[in-house]
């Protein structure tokens, strides 16, 4: 019997929402960790019962949780994230040097093959790794050791490493993205990294074509084509077909190419989804209508998906880690809003319904496909 488990992180706790393969009736579990900000919760592809969660508050900082039974019970694991060596400085908002300071874990990426191996993307931007199921963490210092590190500058949300993509065909290769430094790739298991921002153009930085400084909001990959990546940048939707060596714009007919989320259909590598947001000064949908846009041609040609979504007086946002897909057929698509709704489509985006409403603002949505 197939089913799905939706892991929802919010400003005030985590929720675990489940359904069978029909994805018509939903059971909402939680809140777990009530009152805590849950930036990200993600399950291991190698063991779906193993789930990692990032838990934080402004008062008590970062803690980490792990479940070994599919989210029924949790145990605290290590929360000590210490930068390797002398941390040095990055740029502050005013351009002055600012010491690297750990603030929180934004994103967790479990290994595709080893349930005890998990990567953490943190603010101030760095990548950490645990090889013992979260019981200890060590920085992979090659990333911050990239020569551009001292020039990285935070976006409005902080200098956060928010995206980690693992290449299913090449365990030595991974991709990460940082707001507002850009995208980086390693081909040697994280020892060294290269900036992969050629083709990005950002009018809000002094040199629009700079090597680093681009505010990448999210990158997505289809596991069958790991050299093809799709990017929602601050403005512009982009794609690369050579693992980031060169990006091209695919915003096409989108009503706004600002947004945060982007994801790829589980079975159609050229079908992608975004949620256009009006602008970076108005973080809500265009015309107050919540519309997912789908391209079935790998970009440029987009169609609005509105069936079941509010088409008036809707002023929510959809944050960067808040969209996910399942692997059932038809593919399910999910996203959460800052208004506390989690919407799901069990037909690839043709129709939508809220599987839960009135949660705290949603920070992240991940889906596990269970069999």
């Amino acid at each position, binding site marked *: 019997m197939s089913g799905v488990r939706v892991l929802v992180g919010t400003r005030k706790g985590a929720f675990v929402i489940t359904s069978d393969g029909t994805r018509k009736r939903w059971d909402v579990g939680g809140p777990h960790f009530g009152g*805590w900000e849950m930036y990200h919760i993600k399950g291991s592809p190698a063991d779906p019962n193993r789930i990692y969660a990032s838990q934080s*508050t402004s*008062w*008590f900082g*970062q*803690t980490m949780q792990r479940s070994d039974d599919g989210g029924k019970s949790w145990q605290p694991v290590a*929360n*000590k994230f*210490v930068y390797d060596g002398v941390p040095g400085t990055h740029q502050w908002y005013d351009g002055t040097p600012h010491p690297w300071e750990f603030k929180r874990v934004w994103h967790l990426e479990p290994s595709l093959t080893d349930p005890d191996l998990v990567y953490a993307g943190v603010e101030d931007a760095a990548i950490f790794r645990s090889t013992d199921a979260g019981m200890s963490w060590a920085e992979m210092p090659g990333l911050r050791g990239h020569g551009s590190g001292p020039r990285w500058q935070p976006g409005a949300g902080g200098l956060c490493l928010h995206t980690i993509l693992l290449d299913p065909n090449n365990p030595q290769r991974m991709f990460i993205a940082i707001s507002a430094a850009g995208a980086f790739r390693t081909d040697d298991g994280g020892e060294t990294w290269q900036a992969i921002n050629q083709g990005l153009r950002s009018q809000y930085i002094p040199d629009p074509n700079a090597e680093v400084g681009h505010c990448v909001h999210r990158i997505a990959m289809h596991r069958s084509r790991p050299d093809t990546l799709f990017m929602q940048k601050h403005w512009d939707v982009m794609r690369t077909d050579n693992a980031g060596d060169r990006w091209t714009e695919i915003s096409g007919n989108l009503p706004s190419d600002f947004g945060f989320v982007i994801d790829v259909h589980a079975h159609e590598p050229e079908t992608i989804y975004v949620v256009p947001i009006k602008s970076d000064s108005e973080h809500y949908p265009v015309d107050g209508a919540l519309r997912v846009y789908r391209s079935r041609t790998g970009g440029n040609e987009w169609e609005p998906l509105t069936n079941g979504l509010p088409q008036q007086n809707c002023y929510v946002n959809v944050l960067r880690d808040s969209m996910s897909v399942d692997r059932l057929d038809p593919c399910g698509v999910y996203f959460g809003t800052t208004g506390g709704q989690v919407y799901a489509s069990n037909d690839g985006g043709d129709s939508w319904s809220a599987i839960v409403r009135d949660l705290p603002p949603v920070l992240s949505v991940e889906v596990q496909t269970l069999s």
Partner: protein
Amino acid sequence: MIRVVLPPHLKVLAHVQNEVVLDVDGPPTIASILDAVEGQYPMLAGTIRDHVTHKRRPFVRFFACEEDLSHVSADTIVPAAVVAGKEPFLIIGALAGG
């Protein structure tokens, strides 16, 4: 034996319902009390003070015997009534909101 009251979020994290009672090694200072808290409840390490610098987190306060001990040296001996177990050492999440 020193009594320590944790803020609600940290009680949940440490799986305790009420105040905790601790044996403190050496002089009963703020630092040694926090050492004992973290020794008995390792999941609280880093939530009250920084892992490395041991600097108090900005939104955490320490009270005892109607005194604010948040800004004194961590090597300060806590009041005699706390040492005697008559009064608790309070770890507080600073008020915030509006």
